[in-house]
């Protein structure tokens, strides 16, 4: 069997192209059939390829498909090349699988939307771009996908463009991502300058070999690898919504819910994690960069978990939860535990997509509203949704057996066990590990709060809504159930070695060739972390039950009244958006406006350009005064000018300079150039009044008989005017 990998991204891309061009003329059925078929086929091909090549993938660099040269110039060559190894293959499967499910879900969720074809076209385009990102084996090719998914995210967030807020949220997402992309670009340039290539395998080999081109010091005592890793991480921070660029993701919830599930939970936002894992060898060269990755991840995990506690919008809670979980993944890859990070990415794709689909199902039932203060007691009306939510919720809380438990523990245990930071930064691992445990507590709490407020207790919605509560259609429930099963079972691929000796940490083994050997964690540490995190998860759930079980309870109210400022700060998301607006957007825009008004309009256009105009204009005005319109005055000027001209042309000639050269006792006098012709010269060398030489020659020699002072006289006569001039010089003869 022979596949070309290019088929995988091409299928959804072709689907998108077809739908964009002709989708409007097709029925809804045709549209979603085409769309689902395109991405479903991509999944089948990817799965087939993955399992067919599985032995090769896990033991080598995988399979490549060279489409051709994208562009080449000078020493830069960028090939359009795709590669499936264990890592990209796994991602490919996740993306196409979740993508397919969400396409199916969308046929139900978007069933009544006017712009059906456009939605599926974007969704297909997204899948194609994401698969290109995953499979791309050269950083610029990855960058096509990278920006391509950003574009789709922009389009889908602003899908309901009629609301300015939606469109603005899309724009914000794109621009924030672009800030990160700037870092990605600079990272690429740095790598290219150092390693001379942008092909990922070559870069990884160079990094694994510890090539001096990457370890050479660049700026501020840090090696090239550090700066390249840091700038690339800036890209990851943008795409994966980490501090300080996470602000776009909560706003991105303005898009349709399937989009939030696919793009803003399961796939696109994990691209940053994927990229760091892919270039893991580079990061390992720069422990400081890894520490930054881990630190940012832990900080984000914690901050987002805290903010999620105070949100009252179903999807906003999930959005902050996603940010927080992405922080977990970054801690994973940032502690050199690449397989752990990817494992969490894998399980997260299931349970977070499942949670979002539940959100969609709930909001569908609630007539589009996501306000959890208006929900409650939905478990009876939406049984399937509730069950899926329970499974996925327990998974994210990290309750044993569920997938999230294993992946989260793999990361936390890795953080405590890792040695990648070296002696100077050894404290980073345990610190971020502790941070994650705190975040895990928050996770369990906000997730359970969400569950209790939405599904338990009495329904707080208005009567009309309450009467229309209904479970979603089968095309929506089906994918949810599949994802729920995934959330339950996905953990088996990464059981801790302490639990299962033979089947422990399968992911780590598979990915060993792609991202490096799995992190060694001692058995005891594994057990300890598992026990501790189970306790934390249960504590979080218990605490949440105490506060919110069956609705907002007394302790929660008391908490709010005791710490009003803290609660309002958390509810206000610590006002980060407002701060950014005040510190970045407003000054920049004000500066631009000021520049436009002052520099462009006044300084350049008025003063520089206008200045010249005024100069020329004034000169013209002044000269105009001479033109009085009186012919006689013109004539007078003309006559004066003519007279002057005649004088200049015909005036008596003058010698320009007199040069006297003395050598010993002989002297030579030369009259400089510029003398009119036909002059008569007389030279009196000894000052006796007698001309010693005369005639038309402009120079003369004389030999003095003895040394002394002599008076030299030169006479120049112009025969035309009969004028005569005499020039005198004194000369010394030794």
């Amino acid at each position, binding site marked *: 069997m022979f596949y070309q990998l290019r088929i995988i991204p091409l299928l959804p891309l072709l689907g998108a192209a077809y739908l*964009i061009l002709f989708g*409007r003329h097709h029925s809804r059925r045709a549209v979603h059939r085409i769309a689902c078929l395109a991405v479903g086929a991509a999944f089948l091909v990817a799965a087939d390829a993955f399992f067919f090549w599985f032995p090769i993938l896990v033991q080598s660099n995988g399979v490549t498909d060279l489409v*051709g*040269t*994208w*562009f*080449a*110039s*000078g*020493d*830069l060559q960028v090939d359009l090349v795709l590669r499936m190894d264990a890592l990209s293959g796994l991602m490919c499967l996740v993306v196409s699988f979740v993508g397919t499910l969400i396409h199916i879900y969308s046929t139900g969720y978007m069933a009544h939307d006017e712009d059906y074809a*456009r939605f599926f076209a974007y969704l297909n385009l997204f899948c194609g771009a994401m698969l290109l990102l995953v499979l791309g084996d050269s950083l*610029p090719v990855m*960058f*096509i996908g*990278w*920006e*391509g998914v950003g*574009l789709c995210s*922009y389009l889908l967030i*602003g899908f309901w*463009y*009629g*609301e*300015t807020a*939606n*469109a*603005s949220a899309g*724009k914000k997402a*794109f*621009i924030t991502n*672009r*800030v990160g*992309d*700037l870092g990605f*670009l*600079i990272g*690429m*340039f*740095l790598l*290219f*300058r150092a390693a001379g290539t942008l092909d990922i395998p070559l870069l990884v080999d160079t990094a694994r070999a510890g090539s001096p081109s990457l370890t050479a010091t660049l700026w501020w005592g840090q090696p090239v690898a550090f700066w390249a890793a840091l700038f690339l991480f800036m890209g990851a921070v943008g795409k994966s919504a980490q501090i300080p660029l996470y602000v776009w993701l909560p706003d991105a919830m303005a898009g349709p819910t399937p989009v939030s599930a696919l793009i803003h939970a399961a796939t696109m936002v994990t691209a940053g994690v994927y990229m760091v894992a892919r270039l893991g060898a580079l990061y390992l060269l720069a422990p400081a960069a890894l520490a930054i990755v881990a630190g940012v991840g832990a900080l984000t995990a914690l901050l987002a978990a805290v903010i999620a506690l105070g949100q009252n919008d179903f999807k906003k809670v999930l959005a902050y939860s996603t940010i927080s979980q992405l922080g977990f993944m970054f801690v994973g890859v940032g502690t050199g535990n690449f397989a752990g990070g990817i494992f969490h990415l894998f399980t997260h794709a299931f349970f977070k997509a499942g949670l979002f689909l539940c959100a969609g199902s709930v909001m569908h039932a609630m007539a589009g509203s996501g306000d959890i203060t208006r929900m409650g007691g939905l478990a009876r009306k939406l049984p399937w949704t509730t069950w899926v939510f329970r499974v996925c919720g327990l998974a994210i809380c990290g309750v044993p057996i569920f997938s999230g438990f294993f992946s989260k523990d793999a990361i936390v245990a890795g953080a405590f066990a890792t040695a990648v930071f070296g002696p100077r930064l050894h404290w980073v691992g345990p610190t971020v590990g502790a941070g994650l445990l705190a975040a895990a507590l928050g996770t369990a709490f906000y997730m359970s709060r969400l569950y209790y407020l939405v599904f338990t207790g009495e329904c707080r919605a208005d009567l009309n809504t309450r009467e229309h509560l209904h479970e979603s259609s089968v095309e929506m429930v089906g994918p949810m159930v599949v994802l729920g099963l995934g959330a339950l079972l996905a953990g088996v691929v990464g059981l801790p070695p302490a639990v299962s000796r033979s089947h422990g940490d399968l992911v780590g083994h598979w990915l060993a060739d792609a991202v490096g050997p799995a992190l060694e964690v001692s058995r005891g540490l594994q057990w300890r972390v598992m026990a501790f995190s189970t306790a934390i998860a249960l504590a979080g759930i218990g605490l949440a039950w105490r506060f919110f079980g069956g609705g907002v309870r007394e302790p929660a109210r008391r908490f709010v009244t005791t710490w009003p400022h803290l609660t309002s700060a958390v509810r206000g998301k610590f006002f980060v958006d407002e701060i950014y607006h005040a510190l970045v957007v407003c000054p*920049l*825009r004000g*500066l*631009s*406006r000021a*520049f*436009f008004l002052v*520099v*462009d309009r006044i300084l*350049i*256009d008025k003063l*520089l*350009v206008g200045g010249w105009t005024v100069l020329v204009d004034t000169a013209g005005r002044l000269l105009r005064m001479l033109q009085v319109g009186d012919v006689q005055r013109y004539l007078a000027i003309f006559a004066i000018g003519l007279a002057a001209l005649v004088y200049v042309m015909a005036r008596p000639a003058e010698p320009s300079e007199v040069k006297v050269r003395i050598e010993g006792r002989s002297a030579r006098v030369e009259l400089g150039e510029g003398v009119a012709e036909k002059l008569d010269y007389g030279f009196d060398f000894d000052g006796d009044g007698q001309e010693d030489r005369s005639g038309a020659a402009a120079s003369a020699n004389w030999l003095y008989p003895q040394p002394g002072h002599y008076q030299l006289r030169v006479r120049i006569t112009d025969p035309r005017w009969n004028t005569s001039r005499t020039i005198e010089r004194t000369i010394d003869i030794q």
Partner: protein
Amino acid sequence: MTDLRLTVLVPLLGAILVMLAPRGERTSRPIGIVAALVSLGQSLLILRDFDKSIGAFQMEVDQPWVASLGIHLHLGVDGISLWLVLLTTLMVFLTLLSPQAMGLHQTRSRGFIAAMLVLEAGMLGSFLAIDLFAFYVFWELMLIPMYFIIGIWGGERRLYAAIKFVIFTLAGSLLMLAAILYLYAQVHAVTGQWTFDYATWASITLPRGPELLCFLAFTLAFMIKVPLVPLHTWLPDAHVEAPTGGSVILAAVLLKFGAYGFLRFALPFFPLAAQQTAPIIAWLAVAGIIFGALMAWVQDDVKKLVAYSSVSHLGFVVLGILVLSQKGIQGGIFQMLAHGISTGGLFLAVGILYDRRHTRQLSDFGGLWKPMPVFGACFLVLVLASAGLPGLCGFVGEFLVLSGTFTAGKDWQASGLAAPMFGHPALLAGLAAFAVILAAVYLLTMFQRVMFGPLDKPENRDPKLRDLGLRERLVFGVLVLAALVMGMAPQPILDRTAASVQALTANYRDRLAEARANPIGPARRSGQRPRRPASAQPGTARPF
């Protein structure tokens, strides 16, 4: 084999035919479109016959014009001009095809079409001429029709804009003329023959001082055309007042002459001066990139916004060229083409908006995606291409320019000449890369305010606000396709520019080395009086 003389002649003949046709659009527009189509076909033939392995000029025709003064109609095409010629013929064709080309003044269309064709002839001649006299004649020939296009078919302040455009451009080109005349005499002094031949001119080395002055004269002419900050203020005015067709051609082709002239003339003629001033111009280019982007952000007039975005985008072209490496220059050339497609397309899109709504204020639009989805999709592709989204045409050029700038020091060391250019090329590249963010900011803001948001203004709900018509679809279809193809498969374009750029940079390096080895100036022919007395010579050899 194609005859390049015909390439220049066909639009001129077309213009004459158009003027002979009866008044009105009925017959003159088909004639104009056919003439433009024939030109396009001819440039495609040139593309077919082009041999990409040759770096020198191809398909040369050398016809004496004023032989006694050494003036020849000497035309030739190389990798640098090849695609620009194609861009020119394509954009003129699309412009004539587009129903909005004349803006709202649907009068005197015959004159407009003729002016367009004369303009095309001037542009093609300037790209193809390798005789300085012919170049200058064509260069000025472009000015006149553009003046009329802005001045007759323009908006309210059209006369102001047209005169500003002409005075700015003329100020530069007259300085260039002075330099050309000086060089003409200088070439005679060195070679003993009166000639305007490009190759001869490119082979003589000038004395240091005059070289710098001539370089500045040439550069000023080109910098105004590009335009580089702070010589750019004619551009927004010209663009805003020009009719759509004028704006399209102005942005897509005319602006390219600045960069083209720099590449074709200023670099080969004055290598040392170019190298000495490169850092200053490079910083100006980067300043323009940022400045243009910031200015674009705060515009309320769509057309002005796109005009300022041109300032930003063309900064990349200049930066790439000044890096003086294969990547940079090829990237610069590619960026010229990409900018031609994307910004030309954006101006056409603005023309459509103006045609439908008779306004260009961002605040007057909103929610237009609903009534105009096809237009919206095309507009979006062009916006994204302009923002440099990978996979569309804008990315490749920017990427090559930025990576070329970033690695400039390394490239120069590799070529054997210690990097003399910028202290921190990486810093330059990093600053220029900020345009990546800013471009997204201003372009998406524009797009959102036009296409997204509620459809709350009654004028925008007018049923007359129709989506793209057939002819418009054709025009936009070609542009969108070009943007996609250039983004996904740029290599055929880069392949055909590679050899010429390589020849250019190699020649440049040789000449630079020669100029450094001989710092006094050119070796004169015997019989000429030496510039300085022989005794003064040894002490004046300044170390470089």
